[in-house]
């Protein structure tokens, strides 16, 4: 439901960056999106076409890199991968964890331009 807003923010940032580099065209954008961010990659791709239309990023290639979720178990002092959903159980000791170390990312991570 927030994909359009996220994509507007991404394209704004990319266009600013391109301007700062005196580039007139964006060829490729890479976003890093955590699996817990609630953002749907497919909806992002759809929003990309809408948002880039008529800008220096029109026709650019969009890559959405998925960042897997990882939580931290304080008792075991180690990280573990989180499959999905909202309940994070440490596979080593069975304790519940409330500390997500990775998986909420939403960022513009790479830009190719000329």
């Amino acid at each position, binding site marked *: 439901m927030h994909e359009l807003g996220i994509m*507007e*923010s991404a394209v704004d940032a990319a266009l600013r960056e391109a301007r700062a580099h005196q580039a007139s065209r964006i060829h490729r954008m890479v976003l890093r999106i955590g699996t817990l961010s609630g953002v749907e990659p497919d909806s992002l791709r759809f929003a990309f076409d809408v948002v880039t239309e008529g800008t220096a990023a029109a026709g650019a290639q969009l890559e959405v890199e998925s960042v897997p979720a990882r939580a931290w178990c304080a008792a075991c002092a180690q990280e573990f991968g989180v499959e999905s959903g909202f309940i994070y159980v440490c596979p080593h000791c069975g304790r519940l964890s409330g500390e997500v170390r990775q998986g909420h990312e939403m*960022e513009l991570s790479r830009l190719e331009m000329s």
Partner: protein
Amino acid sequence: MNPTPEITPADECQIHPLSGAAARPGRLLSAPLAAEVSATLAAGPDGGAAVRAVDLRVPLLEKNDILAERNRGYFLGRGLVALNLVSSPGSGKTTLLERTLDEFGRQTKCAVVVGDLETDNDGLRLRRAHAPVAQITTGGTCHLDASMVARGVESLDLEGVKILFIENVGNLVCPASFDLGEQVRVVLLSCTEGEDKPLKYPPIFKSANLVLLTKVDIADALGFKRDVAVENIRRIAPTARLIQLSSRSGEGVAEWLDYLRSLNPQR
């Protein structure tokens, strides 16, 4: 380069200061987070028309997130703690706030911003000589957003206020996605709703700093299993603080008030 995003407040929503209105409304918001966003974009002048690649780490924020950060900075700057109270309709948010204003609000100055789709009923219930209250009617929007809160807060005289309660629109889904700039998100679950709600509506419970299990005075009459509810809350929000209370019998209210005191030691 200062990429201030264009932000237009929601036109639909209306603000009604009910008590303690600001003498003159003014722009009170702190510097935008947008500066931080732009700071990550280090400009590097170079020529060449060849394709260049840059690696970045620009966080992608929506307008609401940016406004929420402004609110947060503003609250921090004023030394007040903001709590966002979220629950399904009728879980007892207003009743708890009424009692809180009466029992706690006389020693520690509190203000309330309360959101509903329609009517100022809750605002009128909360009106007290000693507490500024503003009612926001969202005109159909099922949650408060950061711009509505900013406008609600601007309409109030916050002189001396240490705690700001934001009563969200009764809704267990959408408010989860809208940061208001609060320091503490309080999610209420009342015994009338059933023990399984945390499992059915996990995002809101996952985002809670504090979960209040309310109306415990009628738990037994309803056959509501408190221990099951507590276990379900724990599974979704293992690190959130949990308080069981009844605004009617008063059970647990002291614990809630102690919690409020602990947020704000420099009373």
